């Protein structure tokens, strides 16, 4: 090159940035994951997530990963510049939707700066937040059907990302290479020596599982209560699908009667009608009897309600729960009683949860009360880590 030859070294030599972008984006990724962990409690009931269809990537605002600077809030002069249109002052144009996501046309007040939103998939969140969850008391049944995916840092590869560098193996390879040249020492490490740990997916075979997700949709289930139940079930479904392949999910809605719905309907049902909490348990009982014999199936039954049930029906619910217990690995009952919406006229005695807790004396019946959105995360951990916590005790 003419002229340029004065400084002969190429810049790449100076900065040696091999995969610097990768390194810093790994670091960035880690900070996002930390943020997700830290904000798990709030994130799990984030409206945008619960209303997404579960497949797509979602954007979650990670506030402290933003680059904070002093910036303008409301600008006095909001005028912007455009070009290439024959227009007169006072003209108004409606924007087509397409323009909204793109540059320039973001609405109004705020400065047109990109504020940071992490784009993560639901699966990633499940992996980060719900990693240790599982279906409790799972047993091998005769026909082994479902697969569980676990990840292990297991094999050592020549290619990989820097954070996964296996230092010991790398030094060993270097030693080996030098020894082959007659100088057995660690020196001049180069790319050929690098060894990386990689993740490997191990497939384990597990038994059939059928999970019944049942939800009260009677008139007393306020918007907030329903939202809490849906949040719980949303994540439950996500993690079950993520962890277990070929799992059978049965969605049940009920008011004074119970019926099977598909997943989409389940998450979009509106509340109305009276309540008979025994009905879903009855339906589950019959459905299991017909379709999922306990000899070949691990069955799980979950019900969410506000516990605002008729006294007589409590007894009937108890009957079916007792019938169900020998047929299932676990029954979970979640009662949603937001503090602010306390039903004062209901005596605590008659609440379904209290009634059941008093009368069902089996360890595999788990009942939990949720009073606010913040508790959904803990409820999930409590339900789906129950056998592990039991083991610890």
């Amino acid at each position, binding site marked *: 090159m003419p002229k340029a030859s004065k400084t002969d070294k190429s810049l790449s030599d100076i900065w040696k940035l091999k995969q610097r*972008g990768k390194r810093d984006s790994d670091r960035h990724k880690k900070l996002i994951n930390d943020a997700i962990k830290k904000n798990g409690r709030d994130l799990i009931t984030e409206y945008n997530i619960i209303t997404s269809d579960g497949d797509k990537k979602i954007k979650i605002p990670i506030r402290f990963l933003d680059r904070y*600077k002093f910036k303008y809030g409301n600008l006095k002069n909001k*005028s912007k510049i*455009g*070009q290439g*249109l024959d227009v007169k002052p006072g003209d108004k144009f409606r924007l087509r939707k397409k323009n909204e996501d793109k540059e320039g046309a973001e609405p109004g007040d705020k400065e047109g700066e990109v504020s940071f939103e992490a784009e993560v998939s639901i699966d990633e969140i499940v992996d980060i937040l719900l990693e240790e969850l599982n279906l409790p008391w799972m047993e091998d049944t005769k026909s082994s059907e479902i697969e569980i995916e676990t990840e292990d840092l297991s094999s050592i590869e020549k290619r990989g990302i820097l954070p996964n560098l296996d230092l010991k193996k790398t030094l060993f390879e270097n030693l080996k290479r030098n020894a082959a040249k007659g100088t057995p020492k660690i020196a001049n490490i180069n790319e050929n020596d690098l060894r990386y740990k990689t993740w490997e997916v191990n497939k384990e075979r597990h038994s059939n599982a059928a999970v019944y997700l049942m939800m009260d949709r009677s008139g007393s289930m306020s918007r907030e209560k329903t939202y809490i139940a849906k949040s719980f079930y949303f994540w439950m479904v996500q993690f079950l699908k993520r962890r277990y392949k070929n799992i059978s999910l049965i969605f049940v809605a009920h008011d004074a009667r119970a019926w099977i719905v598909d997943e989409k309907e389940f998450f979009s049902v509106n509340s109305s009608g009276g309540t008979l909490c025994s009905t879903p348990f009855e339906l589950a009982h019959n459905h299991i009897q017909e379709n999922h014999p306990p000899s070949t199936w691990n069955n799980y039954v979950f019900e969410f309600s506000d516990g605002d049930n008729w006294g007589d029906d409590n007894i009937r619910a108890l009957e079916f729960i007792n019938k169900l217990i020998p047929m299932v690995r676990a029954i979970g009952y979640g009662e949603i009683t937001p503090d602010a919406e306390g039903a004062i006229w209901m005596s605590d005695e008659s609440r379904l949860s209290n009634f059941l807790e008093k009368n069902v004396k089996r360890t595999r019946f788990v009942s939990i009360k949720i009073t606010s959105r913040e508790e959904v995360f803990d409820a999930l951990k409590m339900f789906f880590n129950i056998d592990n916590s039991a083991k610890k005790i």
Partner: protein
Amino acid sequence: MNDVLEERIEIIEEMAKSMGLDYYPINYEIVPQETMLEVISYGLPTRARHWSYGQSYEYQKMQGEMGFSKIYEVVLNNNPSYAFLLDTNTDIANTMVSAHVIGHVHFFKNNFLFKKTDNKMVYHAAERAQRIEEYIQKYGLEAVERVMDIGFSLDRHIDWHKGPNREPYKGEGKYFKKTGFDDFDDLLSQEEFSLKEVKDKAGFPPHAELDILWFLINYSRVLDPWEMDVLEIIRQESYYFYPQYMTKIINEGFASFIHAEIMLKLKCIEGPEYFDFCRIHERVVQPGGNKLSINPYFLGFSILTKAREEWDELYKNGDSDIDGIQKVYQIVNDEDDISLIRNYLTEDLAKELQLFSYENLRIPSGGEAIHILGTELDRVKEAIVRDLYNYRAPIICITDVEDGILQVEHQSTNVGTLDLKYAKVVMKYIYEAWGSPLNLQTIDSEGNILHYTYDELGFSE
């Protein structure tokens, strides 16, 4: 680099010199897309690591994958300069890019703002990155990141006129000693008169201080030397980048002007390659599909081309000593974006480009609309330059220190209010670096004066 390109660059450089272009030697490096993205996200590829570059890197990658932006080149302001060309570009594209790069490097060497920048920055940044790497080893990544976060949160608040290398205020050393400011922890037990003396002796800082990092580095009592160094590194880089921020339109416009000039004269390009050139050139200097924003390449190119025509005409008629191209060089030496727009965007050109100013509207029934505010030259100019001031940051000054409490004032309240959510975090950062409480004065949307405080209990209104 292949022979064709190498040969062409030689021809181009010769041609550039005969046109009177004056630039640093250029090292051309042909790099893959990935490296290109790294260079873009770091701005200065040799600078210290930080997670935020990882964020930009991801963002750039996404943009690239989605086909939003194609990056043709990156060129670093340094002597010698480094130009990165994409290995997947065709020869003709890289030929054009090389000519474009020469325009940029002429700009770096001659523009009045760039003359004040460090033209060995690439090497200095590498040395500094090395120091930061050592701090990371010594103090841990998180501690260093924390200080860098603080630095980056304040890096737009510089005082360009005072420059990056400044002497401390005169006489303020006494100020501290007299009042026992050093023993801030003991303030409560200080004699009454000593406190009074602090207040009476108004005038620290002696003027409203714009360069917040400089102030903290020099006058904070809680920063360790390595922390000061990290903040200073970020501050130096901010001064280095400031001219680039202030000259996007004129710099890109000039580089496009130069590549067009050179390419049209290049004899070795003919036939289908010439059409390819025209196609790429068109893409760079077209208004752009989005009518609601402007393409800086296009605007700058159009203004300079117009100025050239005008001065060629004046020169021909004996009304000017310099011809069109000389005028363009002169503009490039003396102007930044704001003054370019103010001085050289003409009524005719604004009409020709159909520039208009507008504001966004929310339609009550849902959806978005725009409302055209006007097409008069002044209005249009105002709408263009509005975003170009002060790194687009609100003007924030340190106005006073009272009993160790930092008084910070948002001065550009005529432009708008502060985004409180962001201000809170930055206040926390300042608090950490200053080590004592601070007050921030600003306004609300109605123009009422507001005072916020950040102290050991956190933020309060």
